């Protein structure tokens, strides 16, 4: 058994909140640059040039890429042989978010009640997702999630008879409905299977997977390629101004499901698809 002080989690979460908001992952940068090279419209090229210049400024000057520095989604893969000491783990994570959003001059965008509102002032609470895995290390991922794109996400409980076509149509419908609102070019996370809640979680996890990787099942890897191509035939384009680049990536994650169902969730993200990981 390995003992880990929860203060260590606080330190790592603080650091990851700041780094994720200032530095876009390399795979996302590459995907944007590849799309710029393929784009032919003047407005579309101009938008992508500005997007590239923007993440380069953020990198160079250590400032947030986007002013919506998001809700802090914190994923923990906890080795089953780890014992946390020195305090409450959830509070340690929230303290990391509190410090990171303060020290990093990040925007505090969380309200304490969904209906009655009221800013919490420190961007807490974090959205915490834990998973118990073999081993004695802890993998911490912080993915700040903006809500311009979160608001355009969708979930549907399909009948099995809707089959693959039902899922394909739902992906296209969701992206078309989103249109210019989620700051395209977007990244599309698709979760299929499990239960209502697990499908949504899979979709969010799909957004954390690097864009230069494919689903390990060739059936779903092919579906990722096919759906990305279809989305980019819609013509919505960068910022919705028309063009080839509507999405820079589409990842699918799946789980077994019930004989009576086929849940499908689609989590939309913008071109600022941020996440940063550290293993303790």
């Amino acid at each position, binding site marked *: 058994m390995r003992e880990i002080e929860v203060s260590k989690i606080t330190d790592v979460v603080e650091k990851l909140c700041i780094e994720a908001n200032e530095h876009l992952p390399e795979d996302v940068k590459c995907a944007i640059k590849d799309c710029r090279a393929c784009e032919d419209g003047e407005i579309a090229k101009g938008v992508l040039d500005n997007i590239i210049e923007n993440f380069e400024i953020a990198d160079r000057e250590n400032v947030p890429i986007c002013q919506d520095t998001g809700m802090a989604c914190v994923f923990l893969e906890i080795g089953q042989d780890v014992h946390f000491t020195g305090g409450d783990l959830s509070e340690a994570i929230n303290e990391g978010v509190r410090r990171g959003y303060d020290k990093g001059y990040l*925007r505090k965008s969380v309200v304490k009640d969904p209906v009655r509102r009221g800013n919490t002032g420190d961007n807490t609470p974090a959205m915490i997702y834990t998973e118990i895995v073999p081993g004695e290390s802890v993998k911490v991922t912080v993915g700040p999630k903006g809500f311009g794109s979160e608001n355009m996400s969708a979930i549907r409980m399909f009948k099995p008879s809707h089959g693959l076509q039902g899922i394909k149509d739902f992906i296209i419908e969701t992206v078309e409905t989103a249109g210019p609102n989620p700051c395209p070019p977007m990244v599309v996370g698709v979760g299929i299977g499990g239960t209502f809640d697990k499908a949504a979680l899979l979709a969010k996890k799909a957004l954390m997977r690097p864009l230069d990787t494919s689903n390990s099942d060739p059936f779903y890897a092919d579906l990722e390629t096919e759906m990305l191509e279809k989305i980019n035939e819609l013509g919505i384009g960068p910022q919705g101004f028309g063009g080839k680049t509507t999405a820079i990536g589409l990842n699918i994650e799946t789980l077994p499901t019930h004989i009576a169902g086929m849940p499908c969730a689609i989590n939309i993200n913008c071109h600022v698809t941020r996440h940063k990981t550290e293993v303790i």
Partner: protein
Amino acid sequence: MARKITLPLTEEIAKSLHAGDSVLLTGTIYTSRDAGHKRMCESLEKGEDIPFDPKDATIYYVGPTPAKPGQVIGSAGPTTSGRMDAYAPTMMSVGARGMIGKGARLPEVVDAMKKYSGVYFGAIGGAGALLAKCIKKCELIAFEDLGAEALRKLYVEDMPLVVIIDSEGNNLYEDGRKAYLKEHK
């Protein structure tokens, strides 16, 4: 080539702008999001003044990150404009003419734009670090309690924007996509 525009946004300038035009905007603009718009519209309903002169004014839908030491303002890209659709016609009815944001607008906003010669500009969503570079002055003028949503007076220089909806109701979101699909049949 982008056209340089100097504010205030007079009716004459507004009418000369067309959906799809790239512009570089210079002058004074005001920031406001949902909560600030709600307060201003409540004031107007009661016949009270709002914190700035709305005549020919341009409003930027933005909630910036806090400025780091030495910065004029933090990252400052546009938020989704649709959340201000409920308030935009009222703002235009008292003279505000320009709106800067991103995303689709409701037909009633477009109708008000045609009636009052309004212009809806798009700034690049997610390009907050780049857009902050164009903001040369920032002064908090009201609603300080709203934090990121407080009302700020900004002076911008050569802010890169695209006209999304013009005063005749032409819409780049519709026309740009149609033009691309026509070319790539």
